[in-house]
Each structure stands twice: as C-alpha cells, then as structure tokens.
C-alpha cells in the first residue's frame, strides 16, 4: 500500500473560546421522537480524553453528563484534526496511523506540522497593515503544547495576544492515529492605551484582561468609521465605543478570536516533494444555545458552494422533506431566542424604537417610515412559537411544504414593502445589512418538495 496524498479531516474546524482548562466533551444534539416540538436534546457522546502529561489520548468514553462550564468557566471546544491518507488501495481514504507510517519506513516524528492564525479585526476597520495580529508556529514534530501568540507591530513591546494552543498528539497503542488538537483562547477582552501598561493604571477597565495595543503607535483607540467609506461593514460602527458628537469612537478593545491554517507535511522515500495537506481552523464565541441552530448556517453556505444554487429533483426527493422540517425547526429555535416584540419594532412599555432592529435599520438606511414589520398583535413570543410548532406539526404529516411562497428570495432582501418585509425569515438581517434570506439552494429545495408531494400513493388502511 502506497500513500498517494494526504488530507486533514475535518477540512474546516470551528473551535469555541473558553477559559476552563478542561476542554468541552463531545455531545450530540438530537430530536426527541416523542416530543418532536421540544428543544433538541443534548446527549453526551464518545469523547477522547487527552492526558496532558504524555500529550496523547489516554482513553475514550461517553461522559455521564454534558457540562458546558467547570468552576464557573466555559469549557473551550477544542477540535481534533486527523490526518488521512489516500492510498493506492482502491483509492480509499484511511487514517494515517503509526502502522501506516511504519509501512513506509516512517515514524510519527516524520510528520511535520505548522500553523498560522490571525485576528485582523482591527485592521478590518482601520485599514492599517500594522494593525494586523498574526501568530505563526513554524514546523514542528514534537508533542509539546505550542502557543499561538498573536503579534502586532502596534502592540506595546513584549505584549502578545494569546490566540490558543496547538498540540500534535502523541500516537499511542490504543490511539495510533496522527492528530493535532487546536485549543482556542480563553475568550478574554484586551485593551488599548497610550500609557505604558507596565505603569499603574488609573481606574483600570474591569472588562479588560490586559492592555496590548499602543495607542501612540496606531489609531484603534478613538477610531471612528467614516461615513461614505466604501469599505465599511453594513451596518458600520459595530465595535465597543462612545459617542463623540456624532462619531462613534472605538474604546480600543480587541478579542482573542482567530482563524487560520494548519499544514501537515510528510516526506516519503523516493518522492522529490513531500506530501502536503492543510485545513482551516477558527475560534468563535461559546455556544450559549447549543440546542438551537440558526436558519442559515455556514454548512448551508458550503452546501450551496459545493452543489450549486439549485437542488436536483432526486435531492428534493431524498432529503427535501427532512430539510424543510429542519429549516422550520431552526426557525422555531430562533423565535425561542428572540424578543420578537422588540425586534418587530413594537412599542414596549411605552417606548418606541428600543433596540437595533431591522425596523430601525430600514428607517435609518432608506428613510422608510418607522413601522413594525408584522402586525404588533402577532408577535407575542408564545403565540409565534405556537405558530411555528403548528407548521412543524403539519410538515410531519407528509404534507408538502405550503409556505414556499412566503420565503424571501435572495434578490428580495431590499424589498421594503409590507409584504417584502414580512417574508421569512423575518426580523433578522444578513451579513449585507438587509433582510436575511435563506440560501438559494435552501429555498429551491423547499419549493421543489412543495411541487412533488401531492402524488403520493394511497394507503390501504390498517
């Protein structure tokens, strides 16, 4: 058996920040068949236990319970990245193990990793190259913990932003696979100052874990988004700050999220070039509603990118109904987490325009009259939950999804008519600042299912 190519699986791993020393256990999120309208159940699943001393997996087990915090601190989600090999045996992928390495006269020490991650959030706003925060771990083959220390030309001397760690896990007899583990950072907030952080601070900001950014070198502290700048996000001003006579000035905060690449390299005898593979990693905030999913996820984006904006009839037949149900379930979960009365623009306790909502944004961006999206009487949260549960119930009968006509098309996100604003998903915005739409592929799938289910066969009865 000859190794032809390498892969890192998963090719995209999203970690989650957490300050606890013990990473999060594995868990599954499932629907209770007897309570299909209830929140999804979180159940413990098989979890690798890493021995910090040996740097390898010592056991695997199903924990007795799922705990998201330990000692009041959030347990980070620390993904494993596994190396797989494409061999000349029927072109199959199989795990790269010590045995497979040995077949090629290699040991785990011959596997070389390198990692590069970055946090370019400040750079995204200021446009200054010197505001990039990058961390690089050059090639390594040991099993030590390697810290991802983010450096930035505009940081105070000697200061770095901890972006987490990576560790090449030592293969063991029981767990001979080649793996790397990425452990994200703690989820802390750091600050900027024009005053040397080594000196005593007057009234230190309790939100901050430390001062990293030198406000004498860079402009992040006090930065404001300039109106009309085509590079601005929509909406702009999405950073911690203060109002300075109409300018939203940055408080100079930075967080410890990051994303980047993990590379692996293996040099085989007789080959001029080493085999290489890479994967993407990222770290986001903890899942505070782990039993819920947004109506449009990264997975949906990838699905569309890979398979196109239109589903085939075969796909609609195979997975359409389940997909339609899944989307409604996610809509139900979203409603559960929303203050729908506020997000609809209702007057709440005598106050109007009480939060940043699509209603405010429609008015601010286009001058549209400030007007709730739905009839105010319809957005009572309990009532909306009931409605979505009813839709989900209807779908489980095998009824074709009849609601395709209320789904927002991708080219209708700027439709400010009453009908346009009330399309689904409602009250939420997409990354472009306009009303959220499902992916074209999601919409297409639901519509195809809606057109095909009326020809189902008849039942003979019990």
């Amino acid at each position, binding site marked *: 058996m000859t190794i032809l190519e390498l892969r890192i699986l998963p090719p995209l791993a999203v970690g989650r920040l957490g300050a606890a020393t013990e990473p999060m256990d594995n868990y599954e999120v499932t629907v209770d068949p007897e309570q299909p309208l209830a929140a999804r159940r979180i159940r413990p699943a098989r979890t690798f236990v890493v021995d910090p001393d040996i740097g390898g997996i010592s056991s695997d087990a199903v924990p007795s319970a799922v705990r998201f915090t330990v000692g009041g601190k959030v347990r980070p989600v620390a993904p494993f990245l596994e190396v797989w090999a494409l061999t000349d045996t029927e072109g199959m992928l199989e795990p790269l193990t010590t045995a497979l390495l040995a077949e090629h006269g290699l040991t785990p020490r011959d596997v070389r990793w390198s990692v590069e991650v970055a946090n370019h959030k400040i750079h995204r706003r200021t446009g200054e190259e010197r505001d990039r925060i990058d961390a690089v771990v050059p090639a390594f083959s040991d099993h030590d913990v390697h810290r991802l220390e983010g450096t930035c030309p505009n940081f105070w001397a000697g200061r770095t932003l901890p972006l987490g760690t990576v560790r090449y896990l030592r293969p063991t007899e029981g767990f001979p696979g080649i793996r790397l583990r990425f452990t994200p950072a703690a989820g802390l907030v750091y600050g900027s100052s024009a005053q040397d952080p080594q000196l005593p601070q007057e009234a230190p900001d309790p939100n901050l874990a430390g001062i990293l950014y030198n406000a004498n070198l860079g402009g992040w502290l006090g930065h404001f988004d300039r109106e009309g700048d085509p590079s601005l996000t929509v909406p702009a001003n999405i950073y911690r700050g203060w109002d300075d006579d109409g300018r939203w000035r940055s408080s100079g905060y930075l967080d410890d999220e990051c994303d980047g690449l993990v590379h692996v390299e293996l040099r085989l005898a007789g080959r001029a070039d080493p085999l290489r593979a890479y994967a993407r990693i990222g770290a986001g905030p903890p899942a505070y509603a782990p039993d819920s999913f947004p109506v449009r996820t990264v997975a949906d984006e990838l699905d569309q990118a890979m398979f196109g904006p239109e589903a085939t009839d075969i796909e609609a037949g195979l997975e359409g109904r389940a997909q339609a149900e899944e989307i409604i379930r996610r809509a139900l979960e979203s409603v559960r987490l929303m203050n729908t009365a506020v997000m609809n623009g209702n*007057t709440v306790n005598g106050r109007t325009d009480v939060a940043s909502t699509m209603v405010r944004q429609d008015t601010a961006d286009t001058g549209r009259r400030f007007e709730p999206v739905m009839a105010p009487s319809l957005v009572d949260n309990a009532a909306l939950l009931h409605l979505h*549960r009813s839709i989900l*119930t209807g779908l489980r009968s095998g009824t074709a999804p009849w609601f395709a006509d209320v*789904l927002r098309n991708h080219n209708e996100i700027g439709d400010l008519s009453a009908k346009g604003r009330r399309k689904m998903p409602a009250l939420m915005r997409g990354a472009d600042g306009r009303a959220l739409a499902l992916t074209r592929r999601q919409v297409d799938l639901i519509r195809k299912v809606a057109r095909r289910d009326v020809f189902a*066969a*008849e*039942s003979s009865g019990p």
Partner: protein
Amino acid sequence: MRSRITRHLGSVLPELLTVPPTAPGGILGGPATPGTLTPIPTDPGPDAGTTGVGTTEAGSDGTADRVPVLPPEFNWRDYTVMLLHIAAEIEHSLMVQYLFAAYSLGGPDVPDRLRAQVRRWQEIILGIAKEEMGHFLTVQNLLTALGAPINLDREDYPWGTEFYPFPFTLRRLTPASLATYICAESPPGWSGDEATAIRRLAGVEAGQEVNQVGALYRRLVAVLGDRELVPDSDFQAATLPFQADWDEWGRGYTRGERGRDSGNVPELEAPELLILGVHSRDSALSALRQIGEQGEALDDLKDDGQDETSHFRRFLTIYQEMIAEPEDDRDKISRRLADNPRTSHRLRDDAARFATPAVAGTAHTGTDLTAHRKHISREITDPAALRWGHLFNLRYRMLLVSIAHAFRLSGPLDHAGALTARGILIHRAFGEMYNLRAIAGALVRLPVSDQGPSGQGQSGQSRSGSLRAGPPFEMPYTLDLPEPDRNRWLLQRDLVQASQLAVRDLRDVLPAADSGVPYLVAVADTDRRALELIERVLAGRGPCHA
C-alpha cells in the same frame, strides 16, 4: 342553509333573480315539494314590503339599480344583516367545497405529463379558496361594523342552497364539479355555446337562471348606499379594532394586486386576499364591490380572456385545459374520493330515504328543491379514516372557534396599545388551517369503507379500486361563544383536551409504523403546549389574560 334563514329566502330571492319576475322556470318557479320551502310569488306585491317602494329595473342585469323592497318582519338594518348572514354562509360553503376539490387533486394515477399541470390547478383552486376566506372575513367585518353578530355557520353537506340550482356538495375535482363552481361564480350575461355546455354539465336547465353571490352583494350595495334606508349612524367606526385586519390575516399574500409568483408553482400569481376593514358607508360599499367583483369580475367578459383575475375566469381556464385532455386522463387527475364523506350516520338523513345514484351533472334541476337530497353523502366506516375524520372535524371546530374568539378581542389601536390575546388566537387559527390540510392529506389516501372496494353511485365508481375518504368538514353542534372571556378560554381548553382524546383514539388503531404516527405525535406535543399556554392565560400570567 339553515331553515331559520331559508324561510326568509322566499322574500329575498325574487329580488335578486336576474330573470324578469314572470319568467317561467325560475328557481322558485317549480312545484312545491313536501318538506321544502314553499315558493312565493316572484312579484313582491303589496304584501311583500312595508315601505311602499316599488321595483324598477335598470342596469345590465336588472338588479344593480333595482329599488330594494323590504321583506316582512325586517327593518332595513336588520334586513342588511340577514343578507350578510346569507353571504357569509355562501362564502363559507364555496371555500370548503373548493378546498375539498383542491385536496382531491393528485394521487399516483396522475399521468406524468400532467403532474405539473395538476399541481398548478391545485394551487389555483387553493388560491381561490384563500380569497373566499378573505371574502368570508370581510363579510364578518361588515357585520361587526353594523353592530351585528358575526356568522361563521353553515349547513352540512350536501345541502340545497335555494340560491343555486345545484346542491352544495363536497366532490372531487372533475369537469362536472368544476362546472358548478364556474356557474356559481359566473357573471350576469354569461352566454354562448361554452356557457350552455358548462351549465348543462352543472345541472342547470336550459333557460334557467343561476344566482350569483355577486347579486347579493349588489343588493347590499343598493341598500347600504341609501342613507334613507341605513343611516350613517348605523356604521360603527369604533368596531374597527375588533374587525379582521389584513395585516393580521393576510400573511405573505398580496394586498390590492395579485402577486407575480406564488413560489409554490412557477409563473403562477399569488392570491389576492381582500380583508377589508369597515368603518363607514364608503368603506362598506367599497368592500362589497371589491369582493363581489373578485368572484365574477364583470370586466372579464369584455377582455380577451387572457387576464385571469376573477374566480370565474380562473375556474373556466382550468375547465378548458381539463377538457382538452383525453377523457380517460381527466378521470385520473384527482383521487377517487367519496362525495360528502361524513363521520356518522344521521338518523334523520333524508338522503338515506331518497338515495339514488347521483351522477354528476344529471341529478338536479332548479325546479326541484329537494333534488339535492338525492345526492347522497357517504359514511366513513374504515376505522382509521373514521378517526381521522373525527380529528378533522374537531380541528375544524377549533379553527372556527378561534376565528370567532379573535373577533371578540380588539387589536391594538396603535402601536403603543396593550396587546390582547388576539394574536394568539389568529396564530391558532392558522395552525388549525395547517392541521386541516395535513389531516385531509391522510384522509384522501385512506379508504372510506371498511368493506373493501365500493363506491356504488359515487362519481369515482367507474374506475377500479376502492373509494377514498376525504375531509368531512362537518359543522360543530354550536358556534356560540360563552361570556365572559375566561369561559371562552375554558372552551378552548375543552377542545384541546378533546383533541388529545381523539389523537389517542386514533393512535390505538394505527400500526406503530403508520406514516401518520409522526404527525400525531407532533399534534399531541402541540396540544400539550397549547394547554400550557391556555392555562397561563386562564391564570392571568400570560402577556394577555382572560
């Protein structure tokens, strides 16, 4: 139509007929039949009205500008309310018949080449049914604006309307059933070879006139448009917050114009829901004209037929497309559903005594007001279908009760107003619409009988295989709501608890692997949560309490 209303129809119909009062063969011109309404002279004469106002003919159909005559036992406001009650029952019945027909479409026998077409027809008919729902709600608004009780009632099927020469019947979609819908929605003056053929298929005899609900609306316009008959003070603008509102009931549908794409079927326009608030004479007249015209759309007869805006034109187009297909294929487009399926034998069902095979298009004449009774209904005896039928009826009742209950609570006067439980009730009503569609989906696939293949006398008889059940749409024993509001929530609780029993009963007869079980599990879950919500309201802990 319930007898308490029909006894007045003899006074009302002559006014609405488009034929001259002396024309033979009119709807009330036939011989009296025992047990039916006795016709009265079509000329109101000196005994018919108390106002002394005579009848004059004007306008294209002879009704629009006819001076109304007040029937006995009424004043003008009350007479208006009664006409609105009749309109509500007709709109309700049309809506349910259209839903039944739409649900019948499909099934495994539909030829592949016709599937897209059949799906399109279904969407069109469902769209028309939704528009009838809009009419139905607008009529309730008119009643509310006049300070009258709303009317969600109607008779069970089949029933002779006295308004139409064919009975209202739950029937699968065929050219014959379609013909009756076309006639019901046809505008005055519709004539020609095609009209003659369709009328014959619908059971309308040559020379016989077909009333239109539009005529009823025109009569209402004539009455409400006259300050001498109904004074301005009879319109109660303050009732507006209690009326159905497009913003609450219109969902994603269009207002004022039909949409470009329904989304479910390409190139098909979304329905236009007319849910119109009434706060004055002008708004009342506007509402009546709009809903009257959406049915028959007078202008349709003048255009080139390409604009499918009216119900009449949309039905007619389906009919034309359907009869262009080979006859054998026409029979395959809909599932073979029993006519008028019902959940239990009626002890006093005239249909049983008069039962004869009812072949579509041949059974009825306008001169025989009891002919409709020959159109038998069919008892569902298959154990599973029967229980699905009971659950359907119960959820239908829950829908009607939620609509009625919503009319008792006010919507917000403005965006700052405190909210009532009206939003909850409206969502509950929509939830029940989804349930009805889901349960109908199960019923159209189940046999109606536990005796194997059958179908004697039913329109689906000609093809092999057993008749299927369909949604029975049987009316509850009452639609009256108790006072005060707390007791209405107790009724809501009763109905949910009854649903829990019905679901349990149904699950007892279904195999564990039956495709309906996941739905029933979800219904049980919904009901459990609905009870929690109702208990919250009853305990005064909800955002809106009793």
